[in-house]
């Protein structure tokens, strides 16, 4: 398939797994809307045969909120880069989570701004070099899972492009979950992050996901706090926004 991603980019692996999860769920393509922002990750909407909406940088969740509230029966998927979701779109992210609107948000975390050439993102990390932090980044990172949880997301999970089987499962569970679901996916950008930070090739980065991540709540993490946890962090039932709105319509009509 011709696509715009560089050889070795993790975004293709995310696309593959997303499509497989949807297939597994047996969803009708006419009921699926995939909304994206701007960035390499956002181009994922151009390769699928759903209703697709490629919007503006950082605002994908706001567009998706409009589609979802207008047609609650549709399944809304939103794919974003870490820049999209947590820098320019950070406010929309926490508010979509707070509302607990039934949208599945994928954050493709390559720890950089890929499309604009490797500047640091909110997830790049302290001390890491970027094209706009040539002396090393002096900004701290977010923990996406903690942020999602604090903001009110009722489902939050982290996967990687190395652990594809569990990634597929996480995506399936996230889509099935009624409420705001977040799946953060560590996805390699060999072109910019790999080169700038000496993280190496795509294969090197995939190996690092294998070696530096552990399942949530494992003992290894307690011994070595630098390890990154993957798996489900939050899974709760909470009043969903569109359902609550239906109640509002009922109340208004009955004059309550």
């Amino acid at each position, binding site marked *: 398939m011709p696509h715009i991603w560089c050889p070795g980019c993790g975004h293709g692996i995310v696309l593959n797994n997303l499509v497989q999860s949807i297939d597994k769920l047996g969803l009708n393509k*006419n009921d699926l*809307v995939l909304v994206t922002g701007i960035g390499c990750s956002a181009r994922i909407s151009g390769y699928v045969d759903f209703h697709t909406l*490629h919007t503006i940088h950082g605002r994908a969740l706001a*567009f998706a*909120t*409009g*589609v979802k509230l207008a*047609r609650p029966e549709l399944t809304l998927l939103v794919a974003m880069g870490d820049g999209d979701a947590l820098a320019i779109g950070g406010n929309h992210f926490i508010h979509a989570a707070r509302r607990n609107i039934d949208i599945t948000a994928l954050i493709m975390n390559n720890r950089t701004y890929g499309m604009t050439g490797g500047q640091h993102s909110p997830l790049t990390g302290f001390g890491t070099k970027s094209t706009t932090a040539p002396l090393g980044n002096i900004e701290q990172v977010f923990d996406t899972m903690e942020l999602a949880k604090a903001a009110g997301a009722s489902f939050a999970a982290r996967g990687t492009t190395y652990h594809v089987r569990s990634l597929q499962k996480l995506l399936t569970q996230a889509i099935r979950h009624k409420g705001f679901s977040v799946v953060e996916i560590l996805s390699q950008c060999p072109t910019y992050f790999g080169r700038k930070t000496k993280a190496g090739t795509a294969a090197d980065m995939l190996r690092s996901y294998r070696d530096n991540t552990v399942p949530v709540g494992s003992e290894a993490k307690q011994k070595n706090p630098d390890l990154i946890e993957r798996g489900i962090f939050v899974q709760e039932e909470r009043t969903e926004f569109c359902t609550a709105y239906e109640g509002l319509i009922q109340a*208004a009509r009955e004059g309550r």
Partner: protein
Amino acid sequence: MKRDNSRDKRLLFLQGNEVCVEAALYAGLGFFAGYPITPSTEISEQLSKRLPMLGGKFIQMEDEIASMCAIIGASLTGLKAMTATSGPGFSLKQEAIGYAVMAEIPCVIVNVQRTGPSTGLPTGVGQGDVMQSRWGTHGDHAMIVLTASNHQDVFAVTVEAFNLSETFRTPVVLLFDEVIGHMREKLVLPEPGEIPLVERLKTSVKEGTNYHPYLPREDGRLPMSDFGGVHRYNVTGLFHDMWGFPTTDPATAHELLHHLVDKIEGAGQRIARYNEFFLDDAECVLISYGSSARSALHLVESRRAVGERLGLLELQTLWPFPAAIVRDRCEHAKHILVAEMNMGQITQEVKKAVSDPERVFLANRFDGNLITHRDIKNVLRVIRGGGM
């Protein structure tokens, strides 16, 4: 004789913002997203009550950018969608307004103007967003912007905004001002069907047959298919082909931009709305719009009473600028005086439109107070060689 109770019910006494709400509902509004800002907030407040009663959707988003994005998303599912704001919020919406232009998504944006720049005078009247409404977003494009000076016309142009938006698949801006938004006056609520409504042109292409969302038709209208329907397609703010997929092909880009501009500029005659008062023999033509036009009309009527040949051209379509009408009505005028509450944003357009720009003068005010008929009269006296 039996009293006509129905007529009483149709007579309302409302704020301009409330009239805008009545008109939007009359036009079939199904979705509203907004963020509070003076002097537009009553629109949100009213719709938060009215829409759920009608089964429509209201959401207060986290900011104006999100509100604009949300109405675009909702419009794609087939609902008539609107947002309302004032100057600072309007600035925030601009990138997404450009997106709606590019992706050809119908929606209505109300801007009840205050005075600026920046947060300016939140409760003061102004008309400073005339140029922002035209050129606020980046790149070349066309824009439809309407305004009104009294509540009956606020109703009519609001319905028209939805009609034009659906006809041309484009965002339409309603540029009111604080005085219009907050002033209370009579509204005769039109009967259902009294003002024709334009509904979205839906594709007749059957399921299983290729639907091209951006295949131009001879009449310029592009039939739409709702998100969630049987035709799946891509929507993007990038230059795109007739399938909606991004392209960098120079010929396709050239053609698309031409299409976006021509469909609106080419329909200037149809979009142009205005009121004329005493123009037939006017020696001096006043040109005004919004609440300024009320003061201008007051002056014209009072000077006519003492025999002065004054006339008023009240613009309701600000963009595309009705240059041909302005040129025609000003042809025999000795003086042309534009009354507006900014530093001359429409005045510049009038100068471009008429044969002799030296005939064009400006009576203005931008201190948060309504321009009065006296303010305009003072400028008129100076133009005619009198002292202040």
